[in-house]
């Protein structure tokens, strides 16, 4: 029987939420790694029982955990993330050069074809990969070696590489995003990278249209249209139809275009979701109302989705990795909040229910559709 497994990373551990294909009753499992920050966990598209988790604390540093049974049991694997060669410097907040220092893994992206091959986006921004199931990690130095690397400056949340999007039609192409450097693309399997920020406009940097320096929060793609990407930038929701060569704004009638998440319906590449957040000064929803906004036209025209979501006195945030969709016939949409709620919609966003209400602050949500 088909089912759904939701993987939730929180400030104090990891949880798996499981349901059958009806998605009405949920079993909550966890916490795994209680007390540790789980920035992200994700399953392999090639083997749904293979999961990877990024586990860290300020006390003990970074660990990577691997499961081969769908999250029932875990084993620590390699946690040595060492920059390639002489690390060099990026720009610090005061404009001075600052040595690259590994802090944590923000995002794990398993290969589309090989359960042992995983990409890791880290802070200070770099991309690593493993081809042996996480035992050994090596940097893909072409990204940090891009000519602009020395100019990258951390945002308030750090210089994190938080988004990795793989192109299912071209295994040598991938997209990444860094706060606050911007979006980059490789077409040669990670050997070389180019910034893809043309069309972004950020008023909070000296040159609003600079090649790098944009605070990209999240990028999403539908697998059937790998040249079309949707972006939630610090401010502005953006779209490209030429693999990032040029972007245009699609914020349209959103009540605010600040936010963190963006995702695409599993079966309709023109249906997209965001959660507007009031501002970068007030990280909570406008008017105390938690609303997902859906566009069925690929942007510009948005509708508020409120049924089942709190519409008063709600002041949670939804962080950048905390929304995902399943690929059941009726697409499910899921997101987690800093208040510890995980909400699910089994009808593409028309109505919502909370799967669980009182977890630690949710950092990431991923979904596996189990056949």
């Amino acid at each position, binding site marked *: 029987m088909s089912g759904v497994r939701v993987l939730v990373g929180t400030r104090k551990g990891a949880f798996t939420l499981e349901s059958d294909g009806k998605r009405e009753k949920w079993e909550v499992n966890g916490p795994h790694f209680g007390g*540790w920050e789980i920035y992200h966990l994700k399953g392999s598209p090639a083997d749904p029982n293979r999961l990877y988790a990024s586990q860290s604390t*300020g*006390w*003990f540093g970074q660990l990577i955990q691997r499961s081969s049974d769908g999250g029932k049991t875990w084993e*620590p694997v390699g*946690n*040595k*993330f060492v920059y390639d060669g002489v690390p060099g410097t990026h720009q610090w907040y005061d404009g001075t050069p600052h040595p690259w220092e590994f802090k944590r893994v923000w995002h794990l992206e398993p290969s589309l074809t090989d359960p042992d091959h995983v990409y890791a986006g880290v802070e200070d921004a770099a991309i690593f990969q493993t081809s042996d199931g996480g035992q050994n990690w090596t940097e893909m130095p072409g990204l940090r070696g891009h000519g602009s690397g020395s100019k990258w400056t951390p945002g308030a949340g750090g210089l994190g590489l938080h988004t990795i999007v793989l192109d299912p039609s071209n295994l040598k192409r991938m997209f990444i995003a860094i706060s606050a450097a911007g979006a980059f693309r490789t077409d040669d399997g990670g050997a070389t990278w180019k910034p893809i920020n043309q069309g972004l406009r950020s008023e909070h940097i000296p040159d609003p249209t600079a090649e790098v320096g944009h605070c990209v929060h999240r990028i999403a793609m539908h697998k059937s249209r790998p040249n079309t990407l949707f972006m939630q930038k610090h401010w502005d929701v953006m779209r490209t139809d030429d693999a990032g060569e040029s972007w245009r704004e699609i914020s349209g009638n959103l009540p605010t275009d600040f936010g963190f998440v963006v995702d695409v319906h599993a079966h309709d590449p023109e249906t997209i979701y965001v959660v507007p957040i009031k501002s970068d000064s007030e990280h909570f929803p406008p008017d105390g109302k938690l609303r997902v906004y859906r566009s069925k036209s690929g942007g510009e025209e948005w509708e508020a989705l409120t049924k089942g979501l709190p519409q008063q006195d709600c002041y949670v945030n939804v962080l950048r990795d905390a929304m995902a969709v399943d690929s059941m016939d009726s697409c499910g949409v899921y997101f987690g909040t800093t208040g510890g709620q995980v909400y699910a919609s089994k009808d593409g966003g028309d109505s919502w229910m909370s799967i669980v209400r009182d977890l630690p602050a949710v950092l990431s949500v991923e979904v596996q559709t189990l056949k």
Partner: protein
Amino acid sequence: MIRVTLPWHLRNLARTDSEVVLDVSGEITQRTVLDALEDAYPMLRGTIRDHVTSKRRPFLRFFACEEDLSNELPDAPLPDAVAKGTEPFMVVGAIAGG
């Protein structure tokens, strides 16, 4: 025989309930004890000392015989009582966060 105590999270990670007992050859120092600990429990690599610099992670301390040895040189001999196994070498998580 060298006795080492670990903070709760690292005991869980190493899947050991209580004090760890190690055979350490040669001089008994922070470095030789931690090398032996990481050989016996590879999952602890990087959690006590930085992978690259081998420096103690900032929020951990090393205590033994009612002394704070955190800032001793890694190759300095540990107290005789640790070397003889009558006292443990303690890896302690700093109280932080309020």
